[in-house]
């Protein structure tokens, strides 16, 4: 399931839904991303997440579908917020449930890695030194590249 929303979400309620009424689930893996008070050595007062309505949902659905195709999963969930957020605020939740824990872990890591380089969100950070658009990070590209076709086994099974 995909949700793109301005309002906060309740991780406990969301995660419960990944196994509720489904006793085939042996494990749920989840990742919650939050706004930090520092970005590198810059203080962050707040940030505004801009996105591309329509394409965001389409891309997140593609990422979810790709995960469902790669692993044997019971449920997957991506919730991503947009708008103005402050340090400590939740930005994103990705989660996967599966009969077996390794599939849940790998799928969850895949969801956030691919989302980071594909979902059309842009962070505008405000701090004491002014505001600026956050630059994409090479390490996010590398994290996503681990999951490229043909390298998947190498990335996770060694």
């Amino acid at each position, binding site marked *: 399931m995909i949700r793109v929303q301005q309002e906060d979400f309740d991780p406990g309620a969301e995660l419960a839904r990944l196994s509720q009424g489904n006793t085939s689930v042996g494990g749920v893996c989840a990742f919650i991303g939050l706004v930090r008070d520092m970005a590198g050595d810059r203080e962050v007062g707040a940030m505004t997440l801009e996105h591309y309505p329509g*394409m965001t949902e389409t891309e997140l659905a593609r990422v979810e579908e790709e995960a469902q195709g790669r692993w044997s999963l019971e449920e997957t969930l991506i919730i991503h917020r947009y708008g103005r957020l402050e340090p400590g605020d939740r930005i994103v939740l990705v989660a996967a449930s599966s009969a077996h824990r390794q599939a849940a872990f790998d799928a969850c890591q895949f969801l956030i890695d691919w989302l*980071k380089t594909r*979902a059309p969100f*842009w962070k505008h950070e405000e701090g004491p030194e002014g505001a600026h658009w956050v630059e994409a*990070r090479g390490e*996010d590209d590398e994290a996503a590249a681990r999951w490229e076709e043909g390298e998947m086994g190498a990335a996770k099974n060694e």
Partner: protein
Amino acid sequence: MKILYFAWLREKTGTPAEVVTLPDGVADVNGLIRWLSARGAGFADAFAEPSLVRAAVNQEHVKLEHPLADDDEVAFFPPVTGG
């Protein structure tokens, strides 16, 4: 066609979205970037460094060589930074 601009491309062009007719001689995204850049200082500035610009056509990531049709929705934006 509809053209959308996000993040600093929106700021530099001063345009969140516009509707234009596919200009004569523009066959792909690169051609559209050249045509837009000739429109004025803000557009020239936004597209000055093509390596920083990403594009989507009909809400799908594409390379700048992607062909264009007049009923396409084209979007320009920097590399994404969500998550």
